[in-house]
């Protein structure tokens, strides 16, 4: 059902250009995907396959060169669409001089929350990510894992309907990784739609309902995790390996 599509990309292309507007690289090439309400969708692919570019187009940070991107049926740059999303980038982009509490307060302000709601939700999220005791410390002094937890809390401050996670377990220890996976499952159980990318296929297999594998900006395969008939890792290697073998064979000939 069209109304159930939270994200809809149709024949999207993205070509990056240099300062003189000369095309440099085609990062996404004719990609189409839909993410339905309430599902956990995994966008998987090797480094440089176009995953982050696709996510940035979905978030309205990049404009597609061709094709259409719809978020909640609107342009990704529409304020109404962005009220409903939370984003955890691959690297935790935080203001180093702000404390964890101030960081969440800042993002609460950007979400338009009133002071009381912001304060309550900040306290709740700091507790959830286990950073209550260091809430008054500047995040510049945090370890990578702690900064990741702050960024995760910041992505949830506006109670989003869609959570976009770019490599959510990157830089986390096994315990924290398990906590993130548990959190994702809990958020899904609460009806949140989640779009995630991951290099760790076992993690993706644990949390995703449906996956799409992309390589060189193109769709290689798409399907429900339970219907792949093999492990996600084997499936992934088979699909991406095929493409790479093709390139290798082409080179050798």
């Amino acid at each position: 059902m069209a109304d159930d599509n939270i994200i809809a990309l149709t024949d999207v292309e993205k070509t990056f250009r240099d300062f003189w507007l000369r095309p440099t690289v085609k990062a996404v090439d004719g990609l189409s995907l839909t993410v339905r309400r309430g599902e956990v969708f995994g966008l998987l692919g090797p480094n440089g396959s176009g995953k982050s570019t696709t996510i940035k187009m979905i978030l309205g940070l990049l404009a597609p060169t061709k094709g259409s991107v719809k978020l909640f049926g609107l342009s990704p740059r529409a304020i109404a669409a962005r009220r409903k999303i939370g984003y955890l980038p691959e690297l935790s982009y935080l203001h180093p001089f702000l404390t964890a509490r101030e960081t969440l307060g800042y993002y609460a302000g950007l979400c338009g929350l009133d002071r009381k709601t912001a304060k309550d939700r900040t306290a709740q999220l700091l507790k959830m990510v286990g950073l209550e005791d260091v809430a008054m410390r500047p995040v510049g002094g945090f370890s990578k894992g702690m900064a990741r937890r702050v960024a995760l809390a910041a992505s949830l401050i506006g109670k989003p309907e869609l959570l976009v996670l770019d490599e959510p377990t990157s830089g986390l220890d096994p315990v924290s990784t398990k906590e993130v996976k548990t959190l994702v499952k809990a958020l899904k159980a609460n009806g949140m739609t989640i779009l995630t990318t991951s290099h760790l296929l076992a993690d993706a297999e644990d949390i995703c309902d449906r996956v799409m594998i992309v390589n060189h900006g193109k769709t290689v395969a798409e399907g429900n995790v339970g219907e792949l008939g093999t492990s996600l890792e084997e499936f992934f290697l088979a699909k991406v390996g095929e493409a790479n073998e093709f390139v290798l064979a082409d080179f050798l000939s």
Partner: protein
Amino acid sequence: MLTVVAPVFHYHQFGEATRMARDSGLSALLTCGSALAVFATIRTFRREIESGTAEMALVHPVSRAGFFLAKTTGVGLAVLFFALIVGATMVTSVTGAAVGGHMAEKTGELARVWAPCVAAGLATLVLPLVIAAALNRFARYRFVLAAVRLALALSLLSVAVFSVLAGPHQLLRLLPPTLTLVSFVLFLVTIAASAAVRLRANAAVAATGAVVLAFLPFVGNYYLAEVLANGGALSWTYVAGATLALVPAVAAFLLLGVRLCREMD
């Protein structure tokens, strides 16, 4: 610092203490204010863009125009704060030098006159930092926030005290050139902001410099010809005219910045 210690020169019988305090204050406002406006604006924008925090802000329900205008306003307020501190120090020093000179002529005791003036000027600059450091050490207040608030309060207090002591004459004389220079410095903020959205730091500095060079005769009007040559005495009509002349240029650069920010990938 030169503005603060200028009254000392009176002790050495240079006879130009008031003028030196005023000219060094106005020079600091234009040169340091311009440098602060250009570098702080470009650094603020580039750091946000290159560190990814701009990206984080833009995925929230904030329009790109709103983001650009809010950041530009923020830097503009920081520049205004700097101008207020320098302006207050200048008013304190000039007024103190004038009062001191007047009293010295009557009493002949120069040393006892300039010392409190210098002490007051130095206190305006140094005291907020010392108190903020103490608050940070003992009460865990944020140093920068405490220093900014204290500096603002002390600046306004010193201007008020010295204006009462010496009458509003010096304040009213210094206000027109100060406002004229501040409006020019704020104009630089808008140029630097629009350049920083599209260009890397060095290129943005070069572009801002190029625009300023193109405006150079105009800049001459703002500073050398009108302010110094006329001894700091400007009519309010000139101030209003100069500020109004900047309005379309400021608007043009803000619109350019908003447009570049919307197109930014």
